[in-house]
C-alpha cells in the first residue's frame, strides 16, 4: 500500500516550470535592478531548487511522515527522553495569532499578555526547582547546561577564584562533559559504586580548590535516586564548589522533592521531556535554567520583571553573562510548557511523578526475570536492564532486541547508555501509558529473548528498510543529493 513514487526525493520529482507558490505582482513602481544593486551582486541564475507543484509537495511529505514512528502512533520507552503524550490543546493554544504572530521587537505595550505568561513561567519553574532565579533563554537542555556553567564561571571570576575543573559522574549524559568543555572547563569523571551511585570516596579524592562544579543527574541515569545527595552537595560546597543538577529526569520527582532543597545551586529543565512539548523529530526543545539567589545576577539578559500590573524586559543586568542566543528564547516551547503547568497544577504534577514511577516499577517487575536489572528491584521513572548474558549465551545483543521490537510495533528503548552497563537497555515508560501497553511490551520483549539469534541479527523484518550500512555512510559520507551531471 506504500506510495513509493511520492517518496522519491524532491529533486527526482522536479519538473521544469512547476511551482507551488504564486505571489502577487509587484504593486509599487519598480526601478531597474541595476540601479538598485551594484554589478555582480545579482545571481546570474536562480538557485537550483527543485520545481514542484503544491499537490506534489503535500503527497511527498505526508507519505514521508508515514515512515516514522511517533508518540502519537507508538509506545516509545526511550530512557532519558521522557516520551510522554503531547497534548493537542497545547498545540492549538500556542498557535493562536496572539501567541505566535508576535515580532520579538514589538513595543512592550503590545506584548503584555506574552510577558505575563513568560513571567509566570519564571515563577513556576522557580517554585518547582526550589531555586528562585530563572532564565528562559537557552534553546535546549545542553544549551541550558552550558549557560549555567557560564554563570558558575562568572561567579567564580567575580570572587577571583580560579576554578577550572568540572566533576562529572561516569554515567552522565554526553552533553554534560561536552557542555563543560564549551564553557571553558576541563572535566574529570567520578566513579560509580557497584550499586550505581556516586562513589563518595572517589568524589572526596577529586574535590579540591580547582573544583568549580559537580554536575549530577538525580535520579541518575540508572533511574535510581542518589540518596546521599545531601552529603554530596555538602562535600562539594565545603570544597568551595557549586552543584549542578541535570534536570532531564525531573519527571520522577515533580512535587516530591526539589533540587534546591537537596543542595543544587543550578539546574536546567527539558520542557520537551518533563513538560510534554513535542520532540519534533529532534527539536525544538528548550533549556530553561534555575539558580540560587546569589547566582541570579549572572543569568542571561534580559529577564521578565513585573512592576505594578505591567511586565517588561529587564536589560539592566550589569553582571549578566550576556546572551546565549538571539531574541527571547524558544517561546513556542515555553508556551506549551505553560499550558501543561496550568493544566496540571500542583496535584497534577505530583500525580505525574507518582504514575511515572509506578509505570517504571511495574515494567521492571515484569521484565527483570528475563532481562536482569543490575540495580535491583526498585527504580524511579526509568530503569536500566542488561542483555549481557544474552549476548554471551545466545549472541543476542541489546541492538538486536531494539531492532526486533520495531517488528512488534514498539519503538526501541535507549540502548548502550549509560556507558557503565554492558548491553544496556534504558527503559522509561512515562505516566501516559496504560498498563495494557506495558503488558504488551513486556510480552514482546520476552518473546524476543526466546527467538533465534539469526532472526534477530537481521531484524527488523517488517519495516521499510533494515540495518542501514552506517560504516559506509561514515567512511564515504553522502550528505546531499547531487544531479547526475555533477557526479
Amino acid at each position, binding site marked *: 500500500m506504500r506510495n513509493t513514487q511520492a517518496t522519491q526525493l524532491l529533486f527526482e520529482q522536479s519538473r521544469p516550470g512547476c511551482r*507551488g507558490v504564486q505571489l502577487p505582482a509587484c504593486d509599487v513602481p519598480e526601478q531597474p535592478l541595476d540601479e538598485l544593486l551594484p554589478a555582480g551582486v545579482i545571481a546570474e541564475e536562480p538557485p537550483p531548487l527543485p520545481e514542484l507543484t503544491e499537490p506534489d509537495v503535500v503527497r511527498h511529505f505526508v507519505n514521508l511522515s508515514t515512515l516514522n514512528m511517533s508518540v502519537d502512533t507508538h509506545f516509545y520507552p526511550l530512557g532519558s527522553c521522557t516520551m510522554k503524550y503531547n497534548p493537542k490543546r497545547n498545540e492549538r493554544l500556542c498557535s493562536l495569532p496572539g501567541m505566535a504572530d508576535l515580532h*520579538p521587537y514589538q513595543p512592550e505595550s503590545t506584548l*503584555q499578555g506574552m510577558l505575563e505568561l513568560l513571567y509566570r513561567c519564571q515563577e513556576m519553574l522557580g517554585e*518547582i526547582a526550589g531555586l528562585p532565579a530563572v532564565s528562559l533563554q537557552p534553546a535546549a537542555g545542553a544549551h541550558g547546561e552550558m549557560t549555567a556553567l557560564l554563570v558558575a564561571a562568572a561567579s567564580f571570576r567575580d570572587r577571583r577564584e580560579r576554578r577550572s575543573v568540572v566533576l562529572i559522574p561516569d554515567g552522565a549524559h554526553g552533553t554534560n562533559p561536552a557542555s563543560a568543555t564549551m564553557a571553558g572547563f576541563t572535566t574529570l569523571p567520578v566513579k560509580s559504586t557497584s550499586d550505581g551511585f556516586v562513589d563518595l570516596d572517589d568524589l572526596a579524592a577529586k574535590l579540591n580548590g580547582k573544583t568549580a562544579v559537580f554536575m549530577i543527574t538525580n535520579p541518575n541515569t540508572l533511574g535510581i535516586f542518589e540518596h546521599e545527595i545531601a552529603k554530596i552537595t555538602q562535600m562539594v560546597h565545603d570544597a568551595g564548589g557549586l552543584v549542578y543538577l541535570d534536570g532531564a529526569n525531573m519527571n520522577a520527582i515533580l512535587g516530591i522533592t526539589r533540587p534546591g532543597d537537596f543542595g543544587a545551586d543550578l539546574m536546567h529543565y527539558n520542557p520537551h521531556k518533563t513538560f510534554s512539548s513535542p520532540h519534533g523529530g529532534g527539536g525544538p526543545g528548550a533549556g530553561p535554567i534555575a539558580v540560587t539567589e546569589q547566582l541570579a545576577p549572572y543569568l542571561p539578559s534580559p529577564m521578565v520583571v513585573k512592576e505594578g500590573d505591567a511586565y517588561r524586559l529587564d536589560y539592566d543586568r550589569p553582571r549578566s553573562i550576556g546572551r546565549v542566543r538571539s531574541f527571547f*528564547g524558544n517561546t513556542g516551547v515555553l508556551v506549551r510548557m505553560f499550558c501543561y503547568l496550568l493544566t496540571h497544577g500542583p496535584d497534577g504534577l505530583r500525580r505525574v511523578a507518582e504514575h511515572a514511577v509506578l509505570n517504571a516499577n511495574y515494567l521492571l517487575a515484569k521484565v527483570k526475570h528475563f532481562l536482569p536489572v543490575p540495580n535491583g528491584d526498585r527504580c524511579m521513572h526509568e530503569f536500566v536492564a542488561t542483555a549481557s548474558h544474552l549476548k554471551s549465551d545466545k549472541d543476542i545483543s541489546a541492538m538486536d532486541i531494539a531492532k526486533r521490537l520495531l517488528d512488534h510495533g514498539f519503538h526501541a528503548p535507549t540502548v548502550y547508555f549509560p556507558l557503565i552497563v554492558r548491553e544496556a537497555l534504558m527503559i522509561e515508560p512515562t505516566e501516559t501509558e496504560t498498563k495494557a501497553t506495558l503488558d504488551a511490551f513486556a510480552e514482546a520483549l520476552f518473546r524476543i529473548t526466546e527467538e533465534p539469534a539469526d532472526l534477530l541479527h537481521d531484524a527488523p523484518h517488517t519495516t521499510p528498510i533494515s540495518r542501514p550500512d552506517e560504516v559506509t555512510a561514515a567512511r564515504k559520507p553522502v550528505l546531499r543529493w547531487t544531479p547526475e551531471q555533477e557526479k
Partner: protein
Amino acid sequence: MPYIPNTIQDRQAMLEAIGAGSLEELFAMVPSELRLDRRLDLPPGLGEMELTAHMARLAAGNTAAGSAICFLGGGSYDHFIPAVVDVVSYRSEFLTSYTPYQAEAAQGNLQALFEYQTLICQLTGMDVSNSSLYDGASAAAEAAMMTLHATRRSGRVVTADAVHPEYRQVLGTCFANLDTELVTLGTPQGTIPLEELEAAVDDRTACVLVQHPNFFGCLEEIEPIAEIAHKAGAVLVVAVDPISLGLLRRPGDYGADIVVAEGQPLGIPMGFGGPYLGVMACREQFVRRVPGRLVGQTADRRGRQCWVLTLQTREQHIRRDKATSNICTNQALYALRAAVYLALMGPTGMRQVAELCLHKSHYAARQLTAGDQFSLAFDKPTFKEFVVRAAGSNVDHLIDTAAADGIFAGVPLGQWYPELADCMLIAVTEKRTKEEIDRLVEVLTGSTV
C-alpha cells in the same frame, strides 16, 4: 488528570505485581528529610475549556502582527507562510517523533532532513549543510568556534558592528572563557571599511565574520572582503538572509567558507523570538568539524536506498568532552518547515519573493525620504531593510505614535548604537502592500503620500 490513563484498578494490580503496598513505598529511595512537605505553590489545574479561556485572555493582551502593519526586521520578519508548511509540520508522525537514532523507525525524518540539507546547499552554493542549530546567532558563534580549531589559530576573530548586535553578544558570551580576541570594526558608513579590515586581519586571525546583507540592510563589498580574509589565511564566515538568496549571488559562488543564517524567514512564525532555525553550511573541508546532526545516504542490508545519522563521532553522545559541540536537541521540526517552504517556492518563487522585498523596501525608502523629515542613514545599496534618520523628531516617540495607529514602524537603533539614537531600522517584506507602505509614510511624516 487528563493524560494519565491508568485506573484505580490498574494501580492496584500494578502495585501487587511490584510487591509494594502503596505508591508512597515506591519513593522510599528519597530520604524523608528531603521530601517536600507541602503542595507546590502553583495555581490549581485547569480543564481544557478553562485553559482555553485563560490563554485567550493572555493572547488578547498582545497585538498580533497581523492585526497591525509590521515593518519590523532585524533578523525576524513578517514573511508569508503557505498553509502547506503548517499542515506538514503538524502531522503527528513528524511533530511527535523523536531524534532519528533508530533509522528503521524514522526514514520520514531522515529523508526530509537529507532533503533540507540539499536544499540549503542549493540555496547557498555550499557543499555541506547540517540539519540545524538553534538560531542564527548561536550558529554564528559555533562557526567562529569551528574556525579556531580548523585553522589552529585562536588569537583573533574579526567582525564588524554591522553584524547583528545579538549575534555579537552571543559571540562575546562564548568567548568569555577563551583567550581569543574579538575585534569589532566600526561601520560609520554602513558597511565595513576595507582598509581597516585589511589592517585588522593578521596571521593570528582564525576567521572574519560578516553579515551580508548586514544588520542595517546594507550590502557589504563581499568579494574584496573574501579576498582579504583568504590572503591572510583566515576563514570567511558569512551570515546571510536566506530570502536574499533568491536574487543575490550565492555565498558559495563568492568565496564564503562557512555560511550561517537565521532560517526564520523560511516558513517559520515570528513567535516572539523562537523557536527559530540555525542554518549552517560549509565547504567540504570542514565536514568533520561541523556541529550538529548530519544525515547521510546509504543502503540497507538488502541494498535499498535509505538514510542515517552519520559522522556521529563528532557528537556529544560519542565524543563527550571532545565533541565538536555540545548540541543534542536541535530545531529539526523547523528544518522540516524550511524544507517544505523551499520545495513550494522553488527557484521562481524565491526569486519573486526577493524581488518583491527589494522593490517594496526601496519604494518605502524613497517615499519616506522624499521630504526633509527623514533621510537614509547610509548611502549604500540595501536589500529588504534600511535605516532612516529622523531629523529633529524623537524616534521612540514616532514609534509609539505609529503603534497607537496600528503600525509597527521600525526598530529603534539607539539601544545598540548610541550614534544611531535618532535612527530606526525599517523592513519591508512581500506582505506589505503599497497602501500599507503609503500609510506608514503618512503616519511617520504626518502628510499624505
